């Protein structure tokens, strides 16, 4: 039966090529607009840490000023101070924990033909790879000692290893970073979460680190982070040591807590830490800390911003207009063919049969609209990539899920659009048309 309806539908659509292409165009444009923004939103709200969402927590401490809180949705600083990070690292409650920040410097290999270039670096404690599930191709993370004393060890990303050593096992080789000799201890697999959930401070869709450095290097290199530094206090800072002991926040802190008991213990630990600091005159605000799972962290940080959400609403409204348009055009088309339907009814086709036949026809329009809509979506995303000047390249891209969703949306909306016209035509009185034939 469906096969017969399909052939009827295709014949009918081909008999009115202009009207049919108008309908396909209307659905395609609507689906194209809607899918462009929906794809952006879908890609932007992906959670690279979904697998460990239940056990990972971003740590926040409200170390801010007594007179004025932090103006963000969490009402706490996004980052922690160096002195707090060092104290928290001493806890043995979490399965893994990471204190880290953004840095960078010129990198080169002695005797290599590669010109020195600036590599984006992540200065982090050694659990980074275990906590975020970053696997190694060669070697592994640095020794525990390197997180507290200055051992010049370095982990390269797959891409950096490719660039510097042609992709071979470079563990044990040495290279020059920021004017000092480092030994390669590991090479990670490609790891490029987008959005960059582990550090949302400087562009959620920027590249991840090219190299990783141990946490024990701060004093040796007097490292000033390339990320955000925020302070609230008028502090006298005369030396690097003063800066490390200041109330400026500039580190991200993550923990992995596998069991409810661990979470409970860690909460007690943080409470005790803040109480201890209060006793020393720090943390003037009411006791408050945050333990946030990656999925909530992405929302709290408003990775999908107001403009993106507004555009999705707008494009859904756009799709609605296109649908209303499709309803009007389908109605026009079906009514024009009412005599044919009349003949079919007179020859014994039931109302349901006429109804389904016309619904199948709307579905065909939707399918064609969906296919063209995918092309328009790809064009729309290309336009966005261009307008965003490279920033959105990883996000403004369509995967299979979204392609299928596009077809689904197109067929669903065209079926919705076809409901009333098909119903209307199935109610026509055959005798009217038989008379005039």
């Amino acid at each position, binding site marked *: 039966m469906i096969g017969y309806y399909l052939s009827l539908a295709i014949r009918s659509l081909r008999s009115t090529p202009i009207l049919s292409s108008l309908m396909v165009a209307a659905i395609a444009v609507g689906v194209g*607009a809607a899918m462009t923004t929906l794809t952006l939103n879908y890609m932007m709200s992906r959670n690279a840490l979904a697998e460990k969402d239940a056990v990972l927590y971003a740590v926040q401490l409200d170390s801010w000023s007594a*007179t004025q809180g932090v103006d963000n949705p969490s009402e706490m600083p996004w980052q922690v101070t160096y002195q707090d990070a060092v104290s928290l690292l001493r806890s043995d409650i979490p399965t893994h924990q990471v204190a880290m920040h953004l840095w960078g410097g010129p990198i080169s290999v002695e005797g290599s033909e590669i010109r020195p270039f600036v590599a984006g670096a992540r200065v982090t404690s050694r659990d980074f790879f275990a906590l975020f599930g970053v696997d190694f191709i060669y070697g592994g993370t640095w020794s525990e000692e390197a997180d507290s004393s200055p051992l010049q060890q370095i982990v390269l990303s797959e891409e950096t290893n490719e660039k510097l050593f042609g992709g071979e096992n470079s563990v044990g080789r040495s290279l020059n970073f920021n004017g000092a000799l480092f030994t390669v201890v590991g090479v990670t697999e490609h790891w490029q979460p987008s959005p960059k959930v582990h550090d949302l401070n400087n562009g959620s869709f920027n590249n991840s680190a090219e190299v990783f450095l141990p946490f024990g290097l701060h004093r040796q290199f007097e490292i000033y982070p390339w990320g955000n530094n925020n302070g609230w206090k008028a502090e006298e800072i005369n030396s*690097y040591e003063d800066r490390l002991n200041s109330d400026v926040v500039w580190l991200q802190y993550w923990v992995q807590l596998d069991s409810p008991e661990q979470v409970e213990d860690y909460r007690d630990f943080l409470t005790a830490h803040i109480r201890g600091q209060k006793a020393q005159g720090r943390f003037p605000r009411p006791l408050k800390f945050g333990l946030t799972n990656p999925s909530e962290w992405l929302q709290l940080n408003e990775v999908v911003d107001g403009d993106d959400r507004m555009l999705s609403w707008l494009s859904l409204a*756009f799709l609605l*207009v296109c649908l*209303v348009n499709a309803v009007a*055009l389908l109605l*026009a088309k079906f009514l024009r063919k009412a005599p044919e339907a009349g003949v079919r009814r007179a020859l014994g086709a039931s109302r349901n049969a006429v109804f389904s036949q016309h619904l199948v026809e709307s579905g065909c329009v939707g399918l064609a609209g969906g296919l063209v809509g995918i092309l328009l979506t790809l064009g729309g995303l290309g336009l966005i990539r261009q307008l965003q000047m490279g*920033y959105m390249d990883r996000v403004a891209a369509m995967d299979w899920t979204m392609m299928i969703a596009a077809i689904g949306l197109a067929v669903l909306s065209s079926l919705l659009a076809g409901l*009333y016209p098909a119903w209307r035509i199935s109610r026509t009185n055959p005798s009217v048309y038989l008379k005039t034939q």
Partner: protein
Amino acid sequence: MLELRPILSALWRHKISALLIALQLGLTLAIVSNALVVIDERTERISRPTGVAVEDINTFGYLAIPKDYDKFEAFRLDLDMIRALPGVASATISNHVPLSGSGSSSGFYTEPNMEVGATAANFYTVDEHFIEALGMNLVAGRGFSPEEIMQVGATSSERPTVAVVTQRLADEMFPQGNALGNAIFRGGDDHPIEIVGIVERNLGPWPNSPIAGRGVFYPAIMDQWFTYIVRAEPGQRDAVLKLVEEKLAERDPNRVINSDTLEEQKDQYYAGDNTMVKVLTAVVILLTFIVALGVVGLTVFWITQRQKQIGVRRALGATRTAISRYFLLENLIIATTGILLGFAAAQIFNGFLVSEFNQPALPLTVTLACALALLGVSLAAALLPALRAANISPATATRSV
């Protein structure tokens, strides 16, 4: 004269189709008018005067390869060399670049030892060439003299005694207009910083932030954060970019140079706003187009359906104009209904955008202008089919009766 009654009764028989077109026009009005206010706001934002010579400026930075690198010495040699190059109008060194999205801000007070109620402002450390090099306009007082420029390390506690501020900061901190010669203070500090000059405007590193336009310039060079800001003679920017980059690498190959035009950085900063403008413009155009198609489609359909009636009317003596007028009038009635619906929808939609997304309010004049434009589009779309309807021969009336 006007066949309102027959039109209305004919429309009543096609009420669903008519309503669908009206609904389309209404929704379109709601979307288009709201999109236009957003487009307008963003365009204005992007084209706001920045206070600096965006089109002529290049910026250069470097990272030294050896660990103990005498940066201050390099600054002196680099800047002397750059200033002597052909096509270079002026050059300075600054901790941050305006419009780049990367900067520093701090709170300032008009009284010493204050902790609350700061005026937040962007701050820059610059050398004595900064007004020239940024292409800013000094409106009062003076710039810096070479002796005033301090060399400060990242943790140096040396504080400047003088500063140049932007007009906006001067007006906001000293509403009586006596900023020049007065002092500003940092939080919890009693060290006065005298305002010795006022520049007309500088939007700062984050033009979309609430502190945009408030700027404080210190006479200092910092070795931790620095960028050379080089203004080229008009039209020479791209040549200067290449030349300076080459010469910097040549003077000391022991470093990695990065360079960019200020225009590129500005475009990067506004990429989000620019995307909104372009996407919304596309939405406006496409929607209008789709609605026009809908109107054409439906008018053509109705005319085909009523071919016989048209023939009868023509046979009974109706002129071609009367036939065309009939369909245009019909379209006008539908469109007006839709636009009335759209007025309400536009306000509701705007209320949602204002409360949910902080978008600008929709002025009635914009809705009105959009409504008129849409009415025009709808009539124009109906025009061609209506004119063709007039060509239907009276003979059709007799054919199949």
